[in-house]
């Protein structure tokens, strides 16, 4: 067996290549279809994708104010919709391997500063025009424009220049970043004709489903795009995305067979739902986590001893059991868990300890005035209950924690990033660098804990361009320990993403990145 074939097989194993595409490519090596089939792993052979049917998704997270601009996608239903009509140039497979999509291949320079993406030919947009490297470059220029409102602006900031060179798009960075392809897999960065400069809301892309009609915050209807470039994706005749924000209504719609898949199952009903006939509950540990954030530049949180006291006073296991109903894992006061590449399993877990909490509280010399924790139910599901648990355990350690409950409305504008101590959440990022850079670097735009530590910054920035994985892993471990000791973030728990699908859906693959198979449910599954 030659090397290419071995690579291809490994790729199939990782779920990066469907059966059909695998057979197509083995044929290119001169293998017959029969031999190609015998090479396939057993699991894949058993699951022959069937075509047809209209799949309906019932999703939380859409409003009548929504637009189709992928740059503005910032809630689950919207994030899922862009996966129907769009494609990115690379994807991150469920096992974190990079999969070239609209780029055929890519490579970085030795210093990770210059990246060359070879763009696939013969790919058509839904309007019939052919996708060109110019479209790719224009898309990236739109999202990296200073005046852009794109949610991807933060990850595009490191780009110095985007040029087109024949079939290639060449991206030059301000400084080396070996994670760039991971960043370009971001769901905001769907390739649009002319980059969507003239009409970002058109909903036209190269994806497997073509938009037929939509009403914002209500219903999106797609049909299969006959000219899609990848025959291994998009087995349904059509897709309907229905926005169902009410949890009970969503669950009822799945149970009564009106939709085939739902996101955000309430952990409190997940166990009951899994016993219902015709329904499978999919609970997937991922990078999403809930946090209590202390602004380390404001008293009393400028006192490291007080921060440590609060970190020891939180009963993490109790929160996982009561707030997440077991659908999650304990956090360790840094934003990384085993779902990230290069995670160090050997880092010590911070345990709940009233003695240590009391000790640190005493050492802090706090005057005993109430420590106010601002919280709203919208900060994360169960946030108010979690704060009440936190208050109870802190008070046992003699810490005068007070819960200040505020309304959901206006929470992200008036409380988060304003009040010195409040509840929040992060949905996680594909790589460690991003999860650290976005909120914890000294100059980070969203530094909601006001954490500024030169040693930490140096480690993260050096790790970015480091190509030796062992060294890089060590750097991230050191950074994690600094944040865990010094930082203003309390991470009590990582929440599983809990989806539910009807039994009629086949081909499900657990994907820890985003809910419903990282949004690829409609692309990768089929009706059994």
């Amino acid at each position, binding site marked *: 067996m030659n090397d290419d074939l071995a690579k291809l097989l490994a790729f199939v194993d990782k779920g990066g290549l469907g059966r059909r595409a695998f057979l197509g490519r083995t044929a290119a090596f001169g293998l017959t279809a029969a031999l190609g089939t015998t090479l396939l792993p057993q699991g894949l052979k058993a699951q022959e994708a069937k075509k047809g049917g209209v799949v309906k998704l019932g999703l939380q997270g859409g409003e009548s104010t929504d637009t189709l601009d992928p740059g503005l996608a910032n809630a689950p239903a919207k994030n899922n919709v862009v996966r129907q009509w769009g494609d990115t140039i690379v994807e991150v497979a469920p096992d974190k391997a990079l999969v070239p999509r609209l780029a055929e291949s890519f490579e970085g320079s030795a210093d990770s500063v210059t990246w060359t993406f070879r763009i696939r030919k013969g790919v058509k947009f839904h309007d019939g025009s052919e996708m060109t490297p110019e479209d790719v470059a224009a898309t990236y220029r739109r999202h990296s424009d200073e005046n852009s409102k794109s949610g991807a602006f933060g990850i595009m900031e490191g780009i110095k220049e985007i040029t087109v060179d024949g079939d290639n798009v060449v991206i030059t960075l301000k400084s080396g970043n070996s994670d760039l392809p991971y960043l370009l897999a971001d769901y905001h960065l769907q390739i649009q004709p002319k980059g969507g400069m003239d009409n970002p809301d058109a909903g036209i892309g190269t994806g497997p489903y073509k938009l037929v009609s939509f009403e914002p915050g209500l219903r999106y209807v797609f049909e299969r795009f006959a000219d899609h470039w990848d025959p291994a994706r998009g087995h349904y005749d059509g897709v309907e995305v229905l926005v169902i924000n009410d949890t009970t*209504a969503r669950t009822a719609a799945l149970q009564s067979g009106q939709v085939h898949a739902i996101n955000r199952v309430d952990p409190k009903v997940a166990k009951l739902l899994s016993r219902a006939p015709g329904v499978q509950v999919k609970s997937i540990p991922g990078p999403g986590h809930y946090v209590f954030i202390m602004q380390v530049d404001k008293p009393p949180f400028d006192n490291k001893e007080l921060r440590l006291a609060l970190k020891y006073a939180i009963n993490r296991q109790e929160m996982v059991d009561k707030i997440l109903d077991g659908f999650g894992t304990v956090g360790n006061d840094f934003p990384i868990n085993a779902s990230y590449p290069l995670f160090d399993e050997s880092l010590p877990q911070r345990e709940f300890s009233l003695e240590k909490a009391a000790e640190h509280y005493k050492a802090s010399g706090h005057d005993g005035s109430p420590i106010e924790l601002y919280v709203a139910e919208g900060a994360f599901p169960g946030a108010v209950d979690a704060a009440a648990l936190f208050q109870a355990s802190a008070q046992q350690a003699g810490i005068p924690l007070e819960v200040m409950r505020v309304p959901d409305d206006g929470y992200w504008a008036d409380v988060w990033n304003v009040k010195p101590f409040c509840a929040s959440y992060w949905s996680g990022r594909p790589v460690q660098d991003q999860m650290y850079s976005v909120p914890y670097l000294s100059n980070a735009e969203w530094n909601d804990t006001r954490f500024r530590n030169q040693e930490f910054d140096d480690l993260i920035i050096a790790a970015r361009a480091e190509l030796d994985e062992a060294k890089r892993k060590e750097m991230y471990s050191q950074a994690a320990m600094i944040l865990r000791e010094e930082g203003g973030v309390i991470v009590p728990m990582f929440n599983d993403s809990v989806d539910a699908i009807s039994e009629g859906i086949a081909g499900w693959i657990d994907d820890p990145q985003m809910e419903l198979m990282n949004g690829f449910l409609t692309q990768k599954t089929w009706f059994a």
Partner: protein
Amino acid sequence: MTLHPVARLAAQRIALGLLLLFAASVLIFLGTQILPGDVAQAILGRSATQQSLATLREQLGLNEPALTRYFSWLAGVLHGDLGIALSNGQPIAPALAKRLGNTLFLAGAAAVIAVPLAILLGLISVRYLNRWPDRLISAVTLATISVPEFLLGYIVIFFLAVQYQFLPSLSTVYDGMSFGARLHAIGLPVIVLVLAVLGHMMRMTRAAILNVMQSAYVETAELKGLRPFAIIAKHALPNAVAPVVNVVMLNLAYLVVGVVVVEVVFVYPGMGQYLVDHVAKRDVPVVQACGLVFAAVYIGLNLVADIVSILANPRLRHPR
């Protein structure tokens, strides 16, 4: 020439209604000004940078003084232009019209069942006063009015959609749906809304007719040997119309402006959800437009109730 007293009273009421509507628009505007938070932040969400926030505020003209924005909006409304939604850049009028149509469809369907049913049940209650039909009707309608609507919604979803799959749990209606399909889709919310408003109207009908039943002319009718139901329907009801119409209109207004919870439970694209989404996004022009429509519906229905009460009063209809 002097106006007929009924016409004069009606004209007075209409003028008062318009004045009220104007006052409501001022209140709505003030209300939207004191909402906490900021449009740009609400649109871009938590992940917005200072740079993009500033850009968006500039684009949306949020830096203009409030008074200027109010009067330019009012001038637009008087010309039939509700403006552009800040959140998605779409004109408000067509989107609002569609949502209002949906809301009126649901409210209308519920009213067509609830109003005659409530009055009929009221008549039956009076006919069998303090006997078992009266007690049963009162007990059931008081029970359904006391249960929160979302719970009623979940109960009917559980039994009629999940257990027996008799009606769909999702009431989403969209363009291209036939009238029959729409009626089928809204089956469950109509049941919930009917149960929610039945009690009030039925109890009011019962009380108003009982009041009239004490009068001398009802006694006369009884002495003449008329059948009890004929006395109630023909002699008592017409004289009890004014209070009944008032309560009916109050409930109709509620069906139009107060059903956001039912809309959420059944995923029905009505005005309520539309308004709530735009309040959350601080989309002031849309909130004002919705507020104005709601105020107009409320004032309009109350106006109708007033005028019907006037017409129902023979002393005003036939002045000496």
